[in-house]
């Protein structure tokens, strides 16, 4: 699959990904995955020009003209924060939305428990962490929880509904599109 991606994204254009985790996979793991293979240089090349969505906005100094009202909490997804090192770009993008307030929540940089296959290998631990995340987000009183990884949000929203915690979620790009 990764080799397919190298073919599909050949060239020299920047590649923008709406997921911190996917961007981190290409940026951090592709070079290791293809190390010592004929595709190594292509993997390193793609790693250098892949950007997470908000990262790209910040890099190109782009500010979509969006407006909203109310408040959002932001979930620092793990690979976004700890592999890409992106804490500020998404917050800057939220701050750029006229009329929208960012509320910081407790445990904002703690894993939501999704973790890819972890969510089905250890569903109970995953569910506990998802519940913690949903409760912390709901406790801020913000109108919705925003993140740069749809998979985290899918898990958090699903767990919130199962636990009866009222919580709306949206991807950052959807917030900027309003």
């Amino acid at each position: 699959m990764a080799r397919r991606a190298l073919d599909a994204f050949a060239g020299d254009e920047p590649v923008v990904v709406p997921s911190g985790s996917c961007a981190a996979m290409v940026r951090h793991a592709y070079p290791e995955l293809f190390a010592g293979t004929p595709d190594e240089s292509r993997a390193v090349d793609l790693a250098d020009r892949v950007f997470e969505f908000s990262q790209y906005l910040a890099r190109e100094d782009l500010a979509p003209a969006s407006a909203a009202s109310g408040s959002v909490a932001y979930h620092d997804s793990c690979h976004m924060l700890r592999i890409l090192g992106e804490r500020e770009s998404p917050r800057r993008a939220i701050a750029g939305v006229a009329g929208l307030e960012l509320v910081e929540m407790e445990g904002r940089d703690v894993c939501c428990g999704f973790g890819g296959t972890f969510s089905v290998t250890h569903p109970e631990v995953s569910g506990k962490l998802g519940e913690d995340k949903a409760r912390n987000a709901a406790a801020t009183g913000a109108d919705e929880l925003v993140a740069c990884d749809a998979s985290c949000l899918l898990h958090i929203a699903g767990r919130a509904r199962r636990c009866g915690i009222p919580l709306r979620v949206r991807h950052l790009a959807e917030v900027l599109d309003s």
Partner: protein
Amino acid sequence: MSERRPVSYEDVTGSLRERARDALADAELGGNLKASSASWAAGRARMGEAHPFAEMRDRGREIRRRSVRELPELLDLLEQRVVEAGGVVHRAADGADACRYVARLAHDRGASLVAKSKSMATEEIKLNEALEEAGLRVVETDLGEWIIQLAGDHPSHIIAPAVHLNKDQVADLFATESGAPVPREREALVAHARRRLREVFAAADIGISGVNLAVAESGTVCVVENEGNGRLVTALPRVHVAVMGMERVVRSWSDAAHILQLLPMAAIGDDAAGYVNLITGPRRDDEADGPEEFHLVVVDGGRSALRGTEFEEALDCIRCGACLYSCPMWRSIGGQAYGSPYSGPIGAVLTPLLEGPTSPKAAELPFMSSLCGACHDACPVKIPLHDLLVRARAVAEPPGRGRDRLAISLWSRLWSTRAGYAATRVGARIGARLLGRRGWLSRLPGPGRAWTEQRDLPTRWPPRP
């Protein structure tokens, strides 16, 4: 031929998932873990303000990488210096070898009582069991270790073994041990333990300690502790045996000074430990106290085989326990669910490496992680634990692994073609329409079951609560 004994505990049963489920159901455990993790995090936050921790980590990593690279030479130098100082060095190929050496020594000296200070290496090689089988009485003198010895428990944390218990639970254990009621206040409990343990220090024939760090250039072992029991164990009995994993060595005092500062910063959020015992050989003629004999047991136990492999950095670990406290999984289930002396991220990497990737119990451990990377951020020597966990998964063979591999390879083949990817999208859409109720799915069949055991699945995006 070296026999490979399991590192994980044989009395721990059930699958990791079952043990995790039991731990999650234990509300008292959850509270204890939450309190201890929060207290660690507060300490770390203080450290972050007071010290250039980022730079210290870089230097720590450089020291540990270099030490592991030079390991054979450093061990030769260490042995030479220890012998020059009047000590005896035994290089043990594995845990069984190390246990035999100590048991024989105890037998030859006619010992009956052994006092121990905290040591993960002896926990790994199951030294207590081996000595008890040889007819000796073994008493742990670190407060936490004594508590879990009384409870018949396994340690739940590398440096805080009884962190899963609270003071009321401890008071009950003390009362049972002494056969009389014990006050429940924290200070009174500590005073009680001190009184009981003083009797042991005075009577012990052999003291056994771990080693936090060995300094090759002077043949010194460093035993770091906060209770003073380590000093008594290494100084009062006639014989002192120090047991170390072979990687626990640095070349110089300049390297050692840095690691000895980094260790308490990472472990307890303090820039100095209560006691740092520096031991170079047995008592000399002009000295008033100290043991008559000093033995250093250096355990390989699968470590040397890791050098030069993609797992080598696991040997950099200084056993501070920071990755455990930082790990959302460890904080949720505690250390005992792992079933190994080494729990949390480093335990999930190290246990299968030391025990062998085909051991079913150890092979489950690398999967107890969401790969969130908090452990890497917490590690004072910057071990890329999340990468090691991924590599450990690649070689692990837990039960059901063949089925998972097949599923993933089919998935990969399906999504490698445009038509296959499109087909799953269409299939998902049809399935969502057929099974969804008001934008949500609450029960999925087959491979989706594990998902809906814990959560609903939105069939519309953004989902409406």
